[in-house]
C-alpha cells in the first residue's frame, strides 16, 4: 500500500494541503472515533470495578483502575485451561492446514496428470458450499467415531486438504515461480519430493505465511466448531470460555471484558508483527480474520 505524501517545503504548501483536504481529515476523525469508541469502551470496562461498571452516566476513564480484573478472570473460570486448549487446537489445525494445503497446491500447480483441471474446477466449486449443509452428517460421522467432546473433529479435517481457499492461494503463488530450477534439478535426477521440499517451498515463505496467519486466526476465533463438538468445560476453547460469564447469575461485565481483551491479544499482536502479509491475505482471499 503506498502512502506517499509530498513533503511540504513551505508553510503555504501545508496550508494549501489542508485547505484542499480538510474534509478528509474531518471524516477520518469522525468515522475513526466511531470505530474506536467500542474498542476503547472494551478496554475501559475491563479495568473498572464492579461498582463503576454500573455507574450512570457511563465513564470513559475508569476510576480507580483495577488491573486485578485480569487475574480474577483466571480465578472465576478455568481460563488458563481455555488458553491451553485454544493453543493446542489452533497449533495443530494450523499446522495441518498449511502442510496439506501446500501439498495439494503443489500437485495442482507443478505436476501434470490426467483430470487435473477438472479436479481443480471441483475445488473452486467447493468454496461455494455453505458449512451448514455438511454439518449434520459430519456430526454423525464424528459421533460414530466416538470423537465427540474431543479436539479431533477440530483438528483432523484440517489435515485433509486444508481448505479450498488456501489451496487456491498457494497454487496461484506456486504457478508464478519459475520452472527453470525445477527442470535443472530434474536433469540432475532430483525427485518430485526433493523439488517440492528443496526448491518450491523455500521460495514460497510469503504465501505460506499468509495461509498460516489466516488459518491461525480462523481457528483461534472459531466458535461454531468447538460449540458443536465440545461439551465439558475443561475442554472449552477461549471463545466458549467467554460464554461461561453469560451463564453466571448476573453477567460480570468487567471480567467478561477483561477476558475478551485477553482473547483478542494474540490476534492484535499477530497483526502488528505481520501487517504486510495480512493486507496481502485479506486482499487475496477476502477473509476478514
Amino acid at each position, binding site marked *: 500500500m503506498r502512502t506517499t*505524501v509530498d513533503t511540504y517545503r513551505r508553510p503555504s504548501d501545508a496550508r494549501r494541503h489542508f485547505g484542499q483536504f480538510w474534509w478528509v481529515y474531518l471524516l477520518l476523525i469522525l468515522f475513526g472515533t466511531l470505530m474506536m469508541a467500542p474498542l476503547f469502551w472494551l478496554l475501559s470496562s475491563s479495568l473498572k470495578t464492579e461498582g463503576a461498571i454500573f455507574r450512570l452516566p457511563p465513564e470513559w476513564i475508569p476510576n480507580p483502575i483495577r488491573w486485578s480484573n485480569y487475574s480474577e478472570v483466571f480465578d472465576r473460570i478455568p481460563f488458563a485451561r481455555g488458553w491451553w486448549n485454544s493453543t493446542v487446537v489452533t497449533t495443530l489445525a494450523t499446522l495441518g492446514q498449511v502442510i496439506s494445503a501446500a501439498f495439494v497446491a503443489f500437485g495442482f500447480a507443478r505436476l501434470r496428470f490426467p483430470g487435473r483441471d477438472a479436479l481443480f474446477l471441483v475445488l473452486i466449486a467447493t468454496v461455494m458450499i455453505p458449512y451448514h449443509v455438511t454439518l449434520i452428517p459430519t456430526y454423525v460421522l464424528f459421533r460414530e467415531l466416538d470423537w465427540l467432546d474431543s479436539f479431533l473433529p477440530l483438528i483432523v479435517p484440517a489435515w485433509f486438504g486444508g481448505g479450498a481457499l488456501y489451496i487456491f492461494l498457494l497454487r496461484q503463488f506456486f504457478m508464478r515461480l519459475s520452472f527453470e530450477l525445477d527442470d535443472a534439478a530434474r536433469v540432475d535426477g532430483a525427485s*518430485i519430493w526433493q523439488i517440492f521440499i528443496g526448491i518450491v517451498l523455500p521460495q514460497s515463505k510469503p504465501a505460506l505465511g499468509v495461509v498460516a496467519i489466516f488459518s491461525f486466526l480462523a481457528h483461534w476465533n472459531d466458535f461454531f466448531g468447538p460449540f458443536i463438538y465440545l461439551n465439558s468445560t475443561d475442554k472449552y476453547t477461549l471463545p466458549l470460555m467467554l460464554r461461561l460469564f*453469560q451463564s453466571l447469575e448476573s453477567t460480570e461485565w468487567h471480567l467478561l471484558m477483561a477476558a*475478551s481483551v485477553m482473547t483478542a491479544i494474540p490476534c492484535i499482536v499477530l497483526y502488528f508483527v505481520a501487517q504486510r502479509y495480512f493486507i496481502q491475505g485479506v486482499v487475496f482471499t477476502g*477473509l476478514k480474520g
Partner: protein
Amino acid sequence: MATASKTLVQGLTTTKPPFLNHRRREAIGGYLFILPWIIGVVVFLLGPIAASFYFSLTNYQVVKAPEWAGLANYRRLLNDDLFWQALKVTTIYVAISVPLGLVLSFLVALLMNQRVKGIGFWRTIFYLPNLIPLVAGTMLWLWMFNPQFGLINGFLARIGIDGPLWLQSQQWALPSLIIMNLWGVGGATLIYLAGLQGIPTDLYDAVAVDGGGAWAKLWTITIPQMTPVIFYNLVLGLIAGFQVFAQPLILTGGGPRYSTLFVVLYLYQNAFANFRMGYASAIAWALFLIILVLTLIIFKFSNAWVYYEGDTRKR
C-alpha cells in the same frame, strides 16, 4: 535431407519410453500430492452433502437409524411458521446489511485512498475491529447495547434521547445486529482499497483533459473499474449473511419473540436441541438451494454491470 530428418525423428522417438515413464511418474506423484484433498472432499464434503440430502428425506433422531419419510420434511417446512419467520429475518438482515456494508466500505475505501498525512494510521484504526475475535466482539456489543448501563444508551441519554431496549426489543433487536455487523466494514474496505490502487491513473487524466471533475471521475472511471471488486464483495457478503449464527445465538438466542431467529440458528435448534436431524437437514438443503439460486442469479446478471478488462461481450 528428408532421410536425415527422418532419422532425427526416429532418434527422438527412441527416447520415448523413458519420457513416458517420467510422465507416468509425474502423474502418480500428482495424485499422491492431491490425495489429502481428495480424501477430505469425499469424507468431509461430498459424502456429507449426499448424506445430508438423504437425511432430509428421513426421520432421523440420531439414537435410531433413519426412517424413510419421503418428502414429509419438506412438506412440513412449507407449513412451518417458524421456518418462514427465520427465512424472513435472514432475508431482511441480508437485504439491509449487505448493501449497507457494500456502500459504507466503498465510501471508507475512497476516504482511505486520499493522499493525506498519516493515512496508514487511519487504515489500521479502521481494520482493528476485524481483529477482535467474533465472540469477544459480540460480547462487547452485548455490553454496548445494554439498555441501562451500555455505552450507546449512555451516549443517547447525554444528547437527550431515551434509547430503546435494543436487543431486548422485538423492534430493535435485528437492527442492533445490523449495526454491529457494520463495525466490521474494515475487511471489505481493504479489498476495495487494493482495487482502487490498481486503477490506472491515465484513465483519470483522460477525464481531466475532457474537463471532468471529481464527480465525473467517480462515475465514469472509479465505479465502473471497481465493479468486479463490488461483485466479489457482494457474493461474499451474501454467502456470509445467510449463514449468520453465532451473533444471534450469543446476543438474543433468537428472540425476543423470534425477531432474530436466523435460519442457521433454527437449524441448530432443531438438530441439537430437539434432535430432529432429518428435519434440520431439510432446512439445511432449503437454505443451500436458496443461496445457490441467488448466487446463480447474481452471476447471470453480472454481465450487465460488471466490467472486465478486454471483455468483448461487453458493449
